[in-house]
């Protein structure tokens, strides 16, 4: 049971990183990027082909690179490629397109990427995907399977906290303030000398890098990656988690990721099995998540932990929880720096 919990928590930390990535793009910069899952997927593939040895000719597997590099090299490569891909897609999609048009382009890009990766075998072995990824530090650290699972959980939690720390610094910085200004009113940002395109593109790239890092960790968790393991629709679950947790709040992103994508599906496993219909349970899970999103939007539109309103300029570390939406009144003032 404990082993199971450790495994689920590792996945929870990875999921939270993905939601943090969405939050940089959608929460901070207001980019409705419905193709986000392309970046975790590419991060996972790149991590795989950088850490795997050359594709063997005995079995029918083909993929690029096969550099047999270390965990850190794989992570770095995933982040760099995720960033470069974000630059390319963002530069095109953000150039002239707003909101819904931008969203359509991101969906299209992801479907193109998905189809290309599935069909073009020399890249990432097509529909069969890559597998046999070695557990990180598996040879250098002599631990039993249980000890190793705990160690991997440690890696994931550390990565989650590190990513949270970085995106939180970004949110509090003058850059974060400018990105929010562009989100709130682009023309006003223009009038005060900001270039919305560049600010948006930067946020888009940061989100892509975070997503790719999450994907690289994900492939370490599942140890294989193929188009079966992800689909462009995955993005919507991440948005659901972010909406429930609290859009534009990094803590909310983490809470939402754990709550919606880990705790709820796990709880629904406790439901009695529906006789003769094994597909019913995943379907019910999705319905529950959908219902949860609707209820959240209805009764608590800003999410469980709404966007943080900082005092004394974005930069100072004092913060104030914005409970005081209409009708709620000021409930409490918390020093947000304690959470970092």
């Amino acid at each position: 049971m404990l082993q199971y919990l450790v495994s689920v928590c590792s996945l929870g930390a990875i999921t939270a990183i993905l939601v943090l990535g969405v939050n940089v793009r959608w929460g901070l910069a207001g980019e409705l990027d419905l193709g986000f899952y392309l970046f975790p997927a590419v991060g996972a593939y790149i991590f795989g082909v950088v850490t795997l040895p050359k594709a063997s000719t005995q079995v029918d597997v083909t993929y690029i690179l096969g550099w047999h590099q270390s965990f850190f090299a794989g992570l770095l490569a995933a982040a760099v490629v995720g960033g470069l891909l974000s630059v390319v897609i963002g530069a095109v999609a953000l150039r002239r397109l707003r909101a819904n048009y931008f969203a359509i382009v991101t969906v299209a890009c992801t479907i193109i990427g998905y189809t290309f990766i599935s069909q073009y075998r020399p890249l990432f072995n097509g529909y069969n995907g890559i597998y046999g990824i070695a557990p990180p530090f598996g040879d250098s650290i002599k631990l039993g399977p249980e000890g190793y699972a705990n160690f991997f959980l440690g890696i994931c939690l550390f990565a989650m906290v590190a990513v949270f720390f970085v995106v939180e610094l970004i949110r509090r910085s003058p850059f974060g303030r400018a990105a929010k200004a562009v989100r709130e009113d682009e023309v006003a940002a223009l009038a005060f000398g900001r270039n919305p395109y560049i600010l948006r593109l930067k946020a888009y790239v940061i989100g892509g890098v975070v997503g790719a890092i999450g994907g690289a960790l994900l492939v370490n968790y599942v140890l294989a990656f193929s188009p079966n393991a992800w689909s462009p629709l995955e993005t919507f679950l991440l948005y659901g988690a972010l909406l429930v947790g609290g859009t534009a709040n990094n803590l909310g992103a983490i809470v939402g990721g754990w709550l919606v994508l880990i705790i709820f599906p796990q709880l629904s496993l406790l439901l009695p099995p529906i006789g003769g219909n094994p597909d019913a349970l995943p379907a019910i899970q999705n319905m529950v998540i959908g219902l949860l999103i609707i209820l959240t939007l209805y009764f608590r539109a800003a999410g469980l932990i709404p966007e943080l309103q900082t005092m004394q300029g974005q930069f100072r570390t004092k913060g104030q929880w914005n409970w005081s939406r209409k009708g709620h009144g000021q409930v409490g003032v918390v020093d947000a720096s304690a959470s970092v």
Partner: protein
Amino acid sequence: MTNATAEAPALVVNDVWRSFGGVKAVNGCSFEVKKNSITGLVGPNGAGKSTMINLISGLLPVEKGEIVLDGEHLEGHTMDAISRKGLIRTFQVAREWPKLTVLENVLAAAPAGNREAVWRSMFGRRALARQEAVLEARARALLVRLNLTAVIDIPAGRLSGGQKRLLEFARVAMVAPKMVLLDEPLAGVNPVLGDELARAIHGLRDDGATVILVEHNLGFIERNCDTVIVMATGQVIGQGSMQDLRTNKAVVEAYLGQA
């Protein structure tokens, strides 16, 4: 006003054209604005005032003609580039950033420099904090001047219409611009606040800015402007003090006569 006549003009608009489809909104418009003056821009509805403001500020591209700010050509540049050259505009509707606090609104309006580089959010934060502290002190002083201290830490979206206008002046003053274009600053503001806004406008001028004021309230224009430019059907039909314009036949026929 005293020595401004000898100086080069702050803004030169020379034979500017702009049409929308077949409609000529601005056709061959030319005027000059004296340095450090408050210049009114008036005219009947559809005269092309707003289009002219949009052309100068770069929100719309100029089809033909020149716009020169302090010797620098503005035509062909984007709005953000023009803003960085020191020309700030406001809009008929106050455009605050609603979820940023009042203070953040003012800080986010200050020239970006390299404070907004992404790497600076992680490295050299102490130096950045010092820069921000200087700006914050200035922002707070401006907000005191504009009577916004009570609302300094609340989201700007919750301000009243008049407070949003005052906030706009704080944001403009934060930039310390060479030139300010104010597009109907009195729109939707109660008359009592008019005096406060007038003070804010003179404050901008005292800080060294040249102000162009588009406004329908001619009393307000007369009380606050050094010169007035009258536009009708996309051209300038008269320029001078309000008294001069009252005796200008073309202006009376096109605009003042109606009032």
